[in-house]
């Protein structure tokens, strides 16, 4: 394998262990929701840097636009108007890939090398290897990856691995006008979060806390929340996310046993893969499953 600009920790659907002697620093992005003004500079910088332009949509009666993540919007702002005891709070959360330490997408991915986890913690999609099956979507506890209708490949935030590889911050972190997005080593980000929590608690947010969910082994995108006890207030941020039990199930028993129960599906899939190529396989499989579901 060629020498990489970022060391690889894991590759999807690959059993060969990657080289693991070099130790690189774990990076993280910290999103301080208490300093976020919801300006969408991160959304724009993301599209600009990554050479993507989402569609000009329409206003659906809220500030959110585009209304959801797409193959061309790898991050979106989600706005929640929360009113409690007469006090209004406008909780605005930047949504996007959390770069889990234990990435459900990677574990679910059947295409070798389509999903990579670098040693610095970034989870990156390599579209040239993607077969468009959508399992990463299912595997993701945060509902982040999106399949493009144009090329049937999965896309999501790369944490600007191209920038990070040359020692730069991701485009969203650099651009953020209020410093609500910080970038550095995971260690630095936790220290920074500590300082922010002291400030927030002094302003009466007793439940302020860091969101670094352990159910997915911690994340390389973390949030400072004023109401860490109720992450769901922030447009449904999961309280205690974990990888779908099915990904766990597969890991737990299917792999060592090489599995009789699922052999048919697997062989079928492989057969199709070899003869017809990846996209068709997944489509056929999808169709089959759709039919099953309809019953």
């Amino acid at each position, binding site marked *: 394998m060629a020498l990489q600009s970022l060391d690889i920790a894991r590759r999807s659907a690959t059993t060969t262990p990657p080289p693991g002697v070099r130790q690189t620093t774990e990076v993280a992005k910290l999103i301080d929701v208490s300093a976020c003004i919801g300006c969408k*500079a991160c959304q724009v910088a993301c599209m*600009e840097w990554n050479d993507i332009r989402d569609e000009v949509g329409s206003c659906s009666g809220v500030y959110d636009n585009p209304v959801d993540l797409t193959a061309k919007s790898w991050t979106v702002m989600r706005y929640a108007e929360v009113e409690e005891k007469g006090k209004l709070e406008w909780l605005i959360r930047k949504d996007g890939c959390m770069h889990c330490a234990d990435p459900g997408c990677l574990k679910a991915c059947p295409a070798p090398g389509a999903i990579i986890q670098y040693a610095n913690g970034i989870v990156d999609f390599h579209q040239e290897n993607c077969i468009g099956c959508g399992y990463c979507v299912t595997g993701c506890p945060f509902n982040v990856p999106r399949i493009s209708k144009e090329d049937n490949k999965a896309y999501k935030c790369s944490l600007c691995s191209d920038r990070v590889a040359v020692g730069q911050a991701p485009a969203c972190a650099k651009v953020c006008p209020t410093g609500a997005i910080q970038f550095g080593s995971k260690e630095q980000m936790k220290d920074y979060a500590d300082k922010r929590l002291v400030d927030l608690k002094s302003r009466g947010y007793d439940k302020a806390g860091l969101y670094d969910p352990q159910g997915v082994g911690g994340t390389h995108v973390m949030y400072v929340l004023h109401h860490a006890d109720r992450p769901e207030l922030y447009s449904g941020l999961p309280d205690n996310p974990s990888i779908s039990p*099915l990904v766990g199930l597969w890991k737990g028993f299917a792999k060592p046993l090489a599995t009789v129960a699922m052999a048919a599906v697997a062989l079928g899939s492989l057969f199709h893969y070899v003869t017809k190529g990846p996209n068709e396989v997944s489509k056929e499989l999808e169709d089959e499953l759709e039919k099953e579901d309809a019953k």
Partner: protein
Amino acid sequence: MQVSRRQFFKICGAGLSGSSIALMGFSPAPALAEVRSFKLARATETRNMCPYCSVSCGVLIYTTGDKSKNAKADIIHIEGDPDNPVNRGTLCPKGAGLLDMVKSPNRLKYPEVREAGSNEWKRISWDDAITRITKHMKADRDANFVEKNAAGTTVNRWNTFGFLASSAANNETGYLTHKILRGLGAVAFETQARI
């Protein structure tokens, strides 16, 4: 946790097929994992300023080519200037989108005229445009310039002609605009400062 049948099969299928491929020593592609290369590596960097609000954020404009004669500089990316003490490299959504302003499909590229009563634009040359506009101006000025008012005081003004000056223009442009306007005797001019 509820798991649908479909999800179940998805996971099984995914894991097995992937695993199986690898176990059989079969790899469909070299599956390299090199990150996208840094697109600005040899681009030319120019210091400029965001033209939107009055924070006047410093920006770095990246252009293709090295300014050699045959390489046309094309703007490919704009980001914040980290040295600028005010914005320190940051930008807002407007500034972050400057590339699409520079590259807007609605940029004007050549002079045009819409004639009286017409429903369309007509492309004209710069010479034509300047000649036709100045003819209008001179005719108007010669007909309506006031040298003295009723009391006999010299007033030297031309107030049938007006000008709205850009607040996005450079200081130098603003200054020259003012100098020329007064030189012509114009008084009916304003800028966006009050709006």
